[in-house]
């Protein structure tokens, strides 16, 4: 049995510039950090059972791989040439579609687990690239590559997407105490509104030409954001996040809606310096950067709006930044000869 753990992420600015329609013309850039919420993938070898079993929100057990409904597991197994004798399960600390990148975290964990299953060790870059290939080329999802890289590498990074498809991951090296202050200045709420990233991104993709200037500004603002992170300019970060959110809203009609706008505005009115919706938009999580002494006020005000809107599962999600990326926590599968 092999157990792999991949972190979720929060992204600050630059989302959308990781789509090929943009970064083929000029490099895209995002800044994000891994957080202490995880997706786990467990792979088990079943030499006596000639089936493919996948356990997630449902359990599938098929004799032929082509009958598997889970598109990404099916594509990944096909790609790896595995068609029987395997059982794959996934677990997560958060529901799906929160805007925290969980579906790509799953893919990176799956890729790492299947490679380990075949006796292959791969590094963070290889796992991220393979997961991007799986989601974008093999499954055909209209998504970018930022989440695969964020999950695979872990930590706080600037991720740059180059026109030649290469990706550079540069860690933002932050003093421990400054990192704690930034962490303490964030408030994250799960709206309980869910959406598929693909529904928003399909429109966003179609708009890349007309929004090229806006996207360029977003990519260009990433180094300045990192600079402010390094100097602990929390108020400045809030202002940048706010500007970024306004730009992101202009990228596609369904990035925001009235419920999200009301939640966001109530946080700003209660004293937050800025914020954004995490993920492609349309739902997911809303995040604020705020003075630490305004947190209770913001909580109260946002929760009041949520209850007016009958968002029953609305809640605050406490988070910590983490350094670890997608890791094999346990590998008790000795079928293949060990390397070296």
């Amino acid at each position, binding site marked *: 049995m092999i157990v792999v753990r991949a972190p979720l992420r929060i992204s600050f600015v630059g989302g959308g510039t990781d789509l090929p329609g943009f970064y083929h013309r000029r490099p895209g850039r995002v800044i994000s950090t891994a957080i202490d919420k995880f997706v786990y993938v467990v792979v088990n070898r079943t030499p006596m059972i000639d089936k493919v079993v996948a356990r997630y929100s449902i359990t599938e057990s098929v004799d032929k791989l082509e009958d598997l409904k889970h598109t990404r597991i099916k594509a990944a197994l096909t790609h790896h040439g595995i068609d029987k004798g395997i059982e794959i399960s996934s677990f997560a600390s958060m529901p799906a579609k929160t805007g925290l990148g969980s579906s790509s975290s799953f893919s990176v964990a799956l890729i790492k687990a299947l490679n380990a299953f075949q006796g292959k060790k791969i590094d963070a870059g290889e796992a991220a690239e393979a997961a991007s290939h799986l989601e974008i080329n093999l499954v055909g999802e209209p998504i970018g590559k930022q989440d695969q890289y964020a999950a695979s590498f872990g*930590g706080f990074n600037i991720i740059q997407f180059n026109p030649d498809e290469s990706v550079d991951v540069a860690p933002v*090296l932050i003093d421990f105490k400054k990192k704690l202050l930034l962490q303490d200045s964030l408030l994250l709420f799960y709206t309980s509104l869910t959406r598929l990233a693909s529904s928003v991104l399909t429109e966003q993709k179609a708009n890349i030409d007309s929004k090229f200037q806006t996207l360029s500004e977003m990519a260009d603002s990433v180094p300045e954001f990192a600079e402010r992170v390094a100097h602990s300019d929390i108020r400045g970060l809030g202002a940048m996040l706010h500007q970024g959110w306004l730009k992101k809203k202009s990228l596609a009609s369904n990035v925001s809606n009235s419920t999200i706008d009301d939640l966001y505005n109530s946080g700003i009115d209660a004293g937050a310096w800025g914020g954004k919706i995490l993920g492609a938009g349309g739902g997911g999580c809303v995040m604020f950067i705020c003075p630490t002494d305004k947190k209770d006020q913001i909580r109260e005000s946002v929760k009041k709006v949520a209850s007016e809107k009958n968002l029953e599962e609305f809640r605050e999600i406490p988070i910590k930044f983490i350094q670890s990326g997608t890791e094999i926590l346990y590998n008790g599968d000795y079928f293949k000869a060990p390397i070296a």
Partner: protein
Amino acid sequence: MKEFIRNFSEKVQTSLKNLPEEEIAKALNILQAAYERDGRIYIFGNGGSMALATHWVADFNKTIFDSNLEEHTRRFQAIRLPSTESEITAWANDIGYDMIFAGPLKNYIQDSDVVIAISSSGNSTNIIKAVELAKQHKVPVIGISGFSPDNKLNQLSDA
């Protein structure tokens, strides 16, 4: 004599001022990640570097969290390789000195671990063999070397 000591002290201070901050920051991130996933840290070196390794193991396993362990509930898990003198001589006598670190490392290494290799020259064969083993396992390597930056350990290390 006093002048020699003063010059020597100045050289040490200059070296400390020129520490590669970015590489050290990367090393800290690697160690934090290992801590978060409950991985182990293997430290090794020859001669004086082995003494450094032993000292460092004590710091990781005991001293680092002394002041705020309540918040953290657990310490680092660091191991000096080889962990016994018997293993050093067994590997050296039976196989050869080149294997005194790689041999024991292969015995322990898991995907979630980290390696810290200390070598003044950065070219000691036994150190490089162990580091190459770690790289094959895609385990992060923190390399500490001196003299010139143009050495094998520095090239192979992640920080």
